[in-house]
């Protein structure tokens, strides 16, 4: 396995917005992490990048094993070498992910110069090649532009090029398509999928869009309130969702052949980290809640197939 999270617990003071997260990604594999806002998807990514201290959090328990080394407690110097060099992050919003005072090209060059020790001209040549790979028209002239001169989709490609410049093995894309037009979204997802297939990268695709999951992912981890509630192959997940939350999420995908007024939503809101319900965290919103769900937290049990669910009701069935 390229990346292995085991029983990861992230804490901010007394709160633990992410707990008992276990998941893994292999080379050439796309793992989707889905869930509503506040479910701990981005925090998990921040933890893998070792950037929690920046926002005042820390890994309280568990391991993050990358290619055999545990990243938890790794000295900052070594972590910095991994960041951008072997693990890269594609940040959420391409509109704000680029420095508006710096030309596009030098921003892409950064990682290659930092990690591969390339000279300015070598880095430039490499960046131009990357830009061409990402189907950016006329790389040589885009190289000298400022970010405000590009469209959103173009900016997202630049952000992806920045992440790829250090030749990473693992790519984490945090909601890479949220800020983009639907037509552009599909292109960006396709670019990411192609990258994984051609270069054998591992990709963690964080999203709340089930459509993107169905289009791109091999396996999916569904997160709710900081816990993985279901882990499954993408086909199994859509054909036979086991957790009531996953089922509800899938029901919420709009379809063109729906009758008017039948669009469904999950009642209630995600509880805040300070007001977690006892027992299963989904129980106040769950349609199939049992008495046991209100007292005992279900654990994620992963079977031989690699699939698993954290639900008393689904396990009993």
């Amino acid at each position, binding site marked *: 396995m390229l990346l292995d999270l085991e029983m990861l617990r992230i804490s901010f003071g007394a709160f633990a917005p992410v707990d008992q997260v276990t998941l893994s990604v292999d080379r050439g594999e796309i793992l989707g992490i889905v869930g509503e806002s506040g479910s701990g998807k981005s925090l998990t990514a921040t933890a893998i990048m070792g*950037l929690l201290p920046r926002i005042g959090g820390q890994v309280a328990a568990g391991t993050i094993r990358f290619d055999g080394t545990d990243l938890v407690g790794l000295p900052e110097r070594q972590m910095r070498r991994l960041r*951008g060099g072997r693990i890269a992050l594609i*940040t959420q919003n391409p509109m704000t992910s680029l420095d508006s005072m*710096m030309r596009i090209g030098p921003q892409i060059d*950064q990682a290659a110069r*930092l*990690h591969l020790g390339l000279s300015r001209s070598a880095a430039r040549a490499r960046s131009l090649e990357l830009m061409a790979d990402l189907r950016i028209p006329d790389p040589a002239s885009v190289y000298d532009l400022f970010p*405000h001169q590009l469209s959103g989709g173009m900016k997202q490609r630049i952000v992806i090029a920045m992440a790829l410049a*250090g030749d990473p093995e693992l790519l984490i894309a945090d909601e890479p398509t949220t800020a983009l037009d639907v037509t552009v979204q599909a292109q960006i997802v396709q670019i990411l999928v192609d990258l994984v297939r051609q270069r054998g990268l591992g990709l963690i695709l964080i999203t709340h869009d089930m459509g993107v999951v169905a289009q791109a992912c091999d396996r999916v981890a569904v997160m709710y309130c900081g816990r993985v509630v279901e882990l499954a192959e993408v086909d199994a997940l859509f054909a036979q969702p086991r957790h009531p939350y996953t089922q509800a999420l899938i029901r919420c995908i709009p379809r063109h052949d729906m009758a008017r007024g039948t669009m469904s939503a999950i009642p209630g809101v995600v509880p805040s980290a300070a007001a977690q319900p006892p027992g299963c965290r989904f129980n106040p919103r769950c349609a199939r809640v049992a008495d046991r769900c209100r007292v005992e937290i279900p654990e994620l049990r992963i079977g031989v197939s690699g699939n698993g669910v954290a639900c008393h009701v689904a396990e009993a069935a």
Partner: protein
Amino acid sequence: MIKHRALALLKAVSTFKGGISGAFLLLLVIGALFAPWLSPYPYDQQDLGIMNQAPSLTHLFGTDEFGRDVLSRMITGARTSLSVSVTAIGISVLLGLVLGATCGYFGGTFDRVVMTVIDLTWSFPEILIALMLVAIIGPGLEGVVIAIAIAYLAQFTRLTRTQIMSLKSETYVEATISLGAGHAHVLFSHLLPNALAPVLVAAMLATGDAIILEATLGFFGLGAQPPTPSWGAMMSSGTAQLFIAPWVILLPGLAVALTVVFINLFGDAVIAALDVRAKFREA
């Protein structure tokens, strides 16, 4: 980036406000630079036979109590006033950038200690701090430069610190850090260039205030020592002849007032032209 800045400057100068004030300031800078060649008489040439003469064709701005040409003294005085205030503000900005950036970026105990001291200096009026410092260092141009630099340090440090603190949480900074960049790279390549524009504008406006402060210190006899002229010192010696030869005090006063007004107008024009947020809206 350089081209972008130059473009903004061009845009500022092309407005009415920016054009007029820019032209005046350019004239002033040229006058200060080439003072020895431009002044009609040596600034220290005394002629007791023509004391306190009203402006005439031979002496356009009249003469003072020693029969010295007021115009020549004002041109040389511009040199003193401008070089002292620009040097002082330059030192102040550099120090403020370094202190503010370190405090804003790293935070912690260092930040708290430095900002407490800085806030302490800010609780006094600039003139008081400057007077106090000159009293300690001793009168003379070096003392005035240091005093003005320290008097304005608080504002640049605070401004830079706030800028850096808000920029630090921008996504592109997170993106750069996730590329494995170190502190120096983040600070110098990304944070400082983005924080610079407002600091430069503030520096320009502060230069106007610094000219007044320099004139005030000169008026009290703490700045340039005779016979070196400065606008403040000229006004000081002119108070005695206020009713006999009012031009000796009024003309340098007018020079101070006009310079400060035009610096402020020019600053306004540059702010309007540099407005980064407006540019985002256009894009």
